[in-house]
């Protein structure tokens, strides 16, 4: 652990965006992550797939410590998360997260949703926060909704707001937990397109999704999880056409790939 921390100081620029080493996560007596190792380079796009309950959400929620871990090391952007609570808030500022259920703040307008964290956490002025918010709402193509409340928007629009809200913090890494799973089918593409734009701008992204078209188009690597383990990992072409593991083949067969 100390060796890794020292390493961090020396080669911070070559440091991966995320490095997880031997991460163990327990929910009471249930072993949800079993000694997981994962390295994500800066600018890399990772798609995580796997059956329900395999630990995909748990994996990405560990990266911003929405879930504490019981063993191993997690280093995000050179900061060792597992070193203490002070580092957790520091990392969270630089890691955006988009949830399956959007989790917009229902008592605030779209604009207020986007301005809150920059003002409270980064301490930027109201005017600056508003300018940033409008810029990102434009980017996700819903500038005209700024003064509405989340409940007045469609699911696809809400999820794009959630992406804009995260981007307003100017994150270095974006985590997506099944961002299109709660959407009506006709709204899936508008959200995926937003994510593709983001990927093309060079954002580091870790995306839990079963949208294999998105994975083929955007992912540098696809990670397959089962039963709390990373079973297989590879570039999309090889991963889909020539999976090495039996469990991967079964899974790809089941989701009709």
């Amino acid at each position: 652990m100390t060796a890794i921390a020292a390493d961090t100081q020396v080669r911070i620029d070559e440091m991966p965006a995320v490095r997880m080493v031997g991460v163990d996560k327990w929910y009471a007596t249930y072993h949800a992550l079993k000694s997981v190792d994962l390295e994500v380079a800066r600018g890399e796009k990772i798609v995580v797939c796997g059956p329900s309950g395999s630990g995909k959400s748990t994996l990405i929620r560990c990266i911003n410590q929405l879930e504490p871990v019981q063993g191993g090391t997690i280093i995000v952007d050179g900061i060792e998360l597992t070193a203490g609570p002070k580092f957790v808030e520091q990392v969270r500022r630089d890691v955006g997260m988009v949830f399956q259920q959007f989790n917009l703040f229902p008592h605030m307008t779209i604009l207020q949703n986007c301005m809150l964290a920059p003002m409270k956490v980064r301490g930027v002025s109201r005017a600056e926060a508003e300018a940033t918010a409008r810029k990102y709402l434009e980017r996700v193509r819903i500038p005209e909704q700024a003064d509405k409340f989340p409940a007045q928007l469609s699911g696809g629009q809400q999820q794009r707001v959630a992406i804009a809200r995260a981007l307003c913090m100017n994150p270095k890494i974006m985590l997506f937990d099944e961002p299109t799973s709660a959407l009506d089918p006709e709204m899936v593409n508008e959200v995926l397109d937003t994510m593709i734009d983001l990927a093309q701008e060079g954002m580091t992204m870790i995306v839990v999704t079963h949208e294999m078209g998105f994975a083929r188009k955007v992912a540098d690597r696809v990670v397959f999880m089962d039963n709390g383990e990373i079973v297989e990992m590879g570039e999309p072409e090889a991963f889909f056409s020539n999976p090495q593991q039996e469990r991967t083949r079964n899974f790809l067969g089941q989701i009709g790939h």
Partner: protein
Amino acid sequence: MIRAFGPNEFLFIVMAVQWTIALSAVAFAGGAVGGLLIALARTSKPRVLRYSALVFIRIFQGTPLLMQLFLVFFGLNIFGIGINPWIAAAIALTLHASAFLGEIWRGCIEAVPSGQSEAAWALGLGYRDTMTSIVLPQAARIAVAPTVGFLVQLIKGTSLASIIGFVEMTRAGQIINNATFAPLTVFSVVALLYFILCWPLSMLARSVELRFAAANRR
């Protein structure tokens, strides 16, 4: 000497309404502060906080208000503060309201979906900002109706302070009854005054509840 129940007697009871209101207001204000602390402690991470708050709530929910009044009243006396029904009633009712509001508001805080605070944490907000900007404003909407409901209970509960000699409406009624021996008239007046205090609050709670229900459907 038996007096008749006349305008003076009526006025005596009406004047005591202010003490019922004063005691309710003090207990409610104190209970709001205490209740918020209890509710935050109950929903916090540290075990010590959660369990101390739970013990406090259980004690006050598990014993009659009258016993709480007696214990504070005679307890203050033991600590040499002397017998003062007003202070004793204010303290006892404040503690009582803290426990009940704490439990009501804990439920309201927990009714806010966990995804809300997770989204706030994921944006880097700390505990304080997450509570004040995200969780409490949403909990407050749910809390209005049950809180007003409890306030009605509290106003009626102040009548027990008459037993330790605090002259609010009920005690005023007893005093007049002892002089006039017209219990039916006297206590009808007292009951009517309580009703006039409480009924608008019940209506308010109901209309607020309907408004939020309508807002949530939208």
